[in-house]
């Protein structure tokens, strides 16, 4: 069998994505030429995806510690202590490329992967959030992508039985040939029952559990090998297909085996499947592992060791059991109608020894596989960025009709209602969802406690393009602000960094700056980053051959806690006669705004400055107002500025209500209405409690003012002395409801 395999050479190494230096390094570490299978192991474990070769040095800048951190980066997911003996486990992952090749299955398997990351920690998944980016929704191709991706998330999440409670969908031409599909999952586990992906205990049995192994998603380079024997046709690597039903069984079986104490360590077979698990698990524990590949349940005939090791078939786990509990493990998985096969054991020698029908096909020190090279490649500030930033949006003509401008903005797909998507998602299974999709953050109760969790994702590629450091910091702030608006105290962050090729210095500069911005914001807001994901090479090769990178898009997921689940807020006004306050600074900008894009198709200008200390105080004040029951509604100002935030307050609730607003004159009404800037929150208050609210604001030491009252059927906004907006809410609602849906339905 292995006889038919090619000999390892520098050329073959290159085909497998390893550089000449890397190949030499392998020979050094082994003291000999690697076998073909060993080369496969290195190519997978030293790939950008598994080894973070280009990003590690930068990611080291992120703050990962905090009093609540039970598990930081490095495991399947991060974990935070949320009191009452509970821990929240969460992580975000990208599945961009697979979703472009096959939208439905790509997105579905993305959901499957992140769910497994959560329940391998011993946690039961309680919520999913999906953060999506697409090209122009007017294009048929984009429409098919959107429909496929949403259908895939819907199918997998719904069938598995985990609610999808939030996310985003934003649009820009740069995503046309490379959509982003980032999925975040949150789970709950007893703080003292967290499991880790470590192969502890020399002599412990190693179990393969879950679906059978096929040739799914094997590194395209296997094609090269196929030419060496007669199996060429059947060797063609195939698209991964999701099986949410098996995943659900895997969840129940794994949790049952864990609760019985039969499990020592466990890891999901994700990217680079078995190869990844058999080297990372012992590497983390300072042990070794030996496996017999012929025991691995296989769906296909004539699979080579290389293929079995690198297959990315879904719904599989590698599980290290406690010696003597083997039968118990088999019984539990049999009960759930799943394969559980002993394929090897933990050793003391620090080596990974892979056999196939008894014959050793790979023998490598696990550290060698785990210790991939790290690069600090050159970074260069992109040419032309200065010009972009110095563009002054105020030189553009003001709209003749601000009502029309607001309608257009609400109808812009990025701002418009995403109900078309989330009504296809089960949002409630588990009966924990106190706030469903449609408000700044989703809120989930924690049964058996008074507490609840608030979660949100955010990331604005336009702002990051114009100023990576500031833009990324703004993403952290907005996600946290969304959590604060629900009444939650942000506790931690997971980040998914979607960028172009790190081998391009200008792209790597964007990346380095963005990471720095996230680090600054997280330090200031005391938010540890406990897990995340880097997705490079998000670019499309255009007709002319020049690669077009996506907008640099860090997506930030924030999890926060509400001490009292009864004290929460949603973003919409609750009726007539309530006073409306605007918290935060007046400094806003049209630079990089949705207005500038929707109206002028421009991505340019300078972003409004960010004062992290003030941001923190505004969020604290917002949380306090919600906690005190003073805030009948709380909504942050993001895309579309104040006018959009107010309109959303009027029309996103079960009953619409108008409002009448007065704001000070600005250089241009468009700036006051549609200008975007951080640290701004709109809160509505019972008049009878105005004094109490004013007291709270005074204590908070933040700029704020009353700007109007709710009531009537119209949205009226006076800027200085001119009535800029005066229109019926119903019309705005129609624009907002149809803006996205009209492209897909």
């Amino acid at each position, binding site marked *: 069998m292995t006889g038919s395999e090619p000999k390892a050479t520098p050329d073959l190494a290159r085909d497998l994505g390893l550089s000449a230096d890397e190949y030499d390094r392998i020979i050094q570490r082994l003291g000999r030429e690697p076998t073909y299978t060993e080369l496969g192991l290195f190519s997978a474990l030293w790939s950008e995806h598994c080894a973070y070769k280009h990003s590690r040095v930068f990611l080291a800048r992120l703050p990962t510690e905090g009093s609540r951190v039970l598990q930081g980066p490095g495991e399947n997911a991060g974990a935070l202590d949320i009191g009452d003996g509970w821990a929240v486990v969460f992580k975000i992952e990208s599945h961009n490329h697979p979703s472009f090749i096959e939208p439905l299955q790509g997105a579905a398997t993305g959901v499957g992967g992140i769910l497994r990351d959560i329940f391998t920690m011993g946690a039961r998944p309680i919520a999913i959030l999906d953060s999506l980016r697409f090209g122009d929704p007017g294009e048929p191709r984009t429409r098919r992508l959107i429909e496929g991706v949403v259908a895939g998330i819907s199918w997998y999440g719904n069938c598995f039985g985990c609610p999808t409670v939030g996310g985003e969908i934003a649009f820009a031409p740069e995503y046309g040939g490379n959509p982003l599909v980032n999925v975040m999952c949150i789970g709950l586990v007893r703080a003292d029952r967290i499991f880790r992906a470590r192969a502890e205990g020399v002599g412990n049995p190693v179990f393969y559990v879950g679906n059978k192994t096929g040739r799914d998603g094997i590194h395209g380079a296997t094609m090269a090998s196929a030419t060496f024997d007669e199996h060429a046709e059947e060797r*063609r690597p*195939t698209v991964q297909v999701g099986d949410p*039903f098996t995943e659900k069984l895997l969840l129940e079986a794994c949790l049952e085996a864990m609760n019985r104490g039969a499990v020592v360590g466990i890891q999901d077979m994700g990217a680079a499947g078995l190869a990844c698990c058999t080297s990372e698990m012992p590497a983390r524990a300072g042990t070794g592992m030996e496996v017999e590949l012929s025991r691995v349940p296989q769906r296909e005939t004539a699979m080579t060791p290389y293929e079995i090791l690198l297959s990315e078939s879904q719904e599989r786990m590698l599980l290290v059991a406690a010696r003597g509990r083997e039968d118990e493990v088999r019984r539990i998985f049999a009960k759930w109608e799943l394969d559980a096969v002993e394929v090897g054991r933990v050793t003391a020698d620090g080596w990974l020894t892979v056999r196939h029908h008894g014959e050793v096909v790979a023998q490598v020190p696990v550290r060698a596989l785990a210790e991939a090279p790290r690069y600090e490649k050159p970074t260069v500030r992109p040419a032309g960025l200065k010009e972009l930033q110095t563009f002054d949006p105020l030189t553009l003509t003001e709209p003749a009709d601000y009502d029309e401008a607001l309608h257009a903005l609400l109808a812009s797909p990025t701002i418009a209602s995403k109900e078309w998507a989330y009504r296809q998602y089960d949002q409630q299974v588990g009966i924990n969802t106190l706030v469903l999709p449609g408000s700044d953050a989703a809120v989930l109760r924690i049964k058996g406690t008074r507490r609840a969790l608030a979660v949100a994702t955010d990331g604005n590629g336009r702002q990051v393009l114009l100023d990576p450091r500031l833009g990324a910091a703004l993403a952290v702030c907005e996600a946290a602000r969304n959590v604060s608006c629900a009444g939650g105290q942000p506790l931690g962050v997971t980040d998914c960094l979607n960028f172009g090729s790190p081998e391009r210095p200008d792209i790597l500069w964007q990346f380095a700056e963005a990471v720095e911005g996230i680090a600054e914001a997280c330090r200031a807001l005391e938010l540890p980053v406990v897990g995340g994901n880097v997705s490079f090479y998000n670019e499309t090769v255009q007709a002319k051959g020049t690669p077009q990178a996506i907008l640099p898009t860090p997506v930030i997921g924030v999890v926060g806690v509400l001490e009292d689940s009864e004290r929460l807020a949603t973003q919409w006004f609750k009726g007539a006669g309530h006073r409306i306050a605007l918290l935060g600074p007046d400094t806003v900008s049209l630079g990089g705004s949705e207005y500038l894009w929707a109206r002028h198709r421009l991505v340019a200008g300078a972003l409004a400055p960010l004062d992290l200390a003030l941001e923190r105080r505004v969020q604290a004040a917002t949380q306090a107002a919600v906690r005190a029951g003073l805030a009948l509604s709380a909504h942050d100002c993001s895309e579309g500025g104040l006018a959009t935030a107010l309109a959303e307050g009027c029309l996103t609730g079960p009953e619409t209500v108008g409002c009448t607003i007065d704001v000070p004159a600005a250089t241009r009404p468009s700036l006051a209405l549609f200008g975007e800037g951080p640290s701004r929150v709109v809160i509505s208050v019972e008049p009878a409690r105005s004094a109490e609210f004013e007291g709270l604001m005074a204590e908070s030491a933040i700029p704020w003012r009353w700007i109007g009252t709710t009531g009537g059927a119209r949205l009226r906004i006076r800027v200085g002395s001119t009535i800029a907006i005066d229109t019926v809410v119903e019309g705005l609602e129609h624009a907002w409801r149809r803006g996205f849906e009209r492209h897909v339905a």
Partner: protein
Amino acid sequence: MKIRVLVRLKPGILDVQGAAVKRALVGLGFPDVADLRVGKVIEVDVDAPSEAQARSRADEMCRKLLANPVLEDYTIE
């Protein structure tokens, strides 16, 4: 002209549906099911002067919409 199109998963692609149905049948007392795969049958009535033309239209339809080239093969009968 009635044309029958069969759309099946490519060989090697996990047939989630087929595997589940097979397991169910075995459980219902059909241990003699050695293998089972589930696909789609699409029956199209095409306005075409000749069978040959109807078939070639059906073939176009498959390439344009009916079959997903990444996952599925199709045959026309």
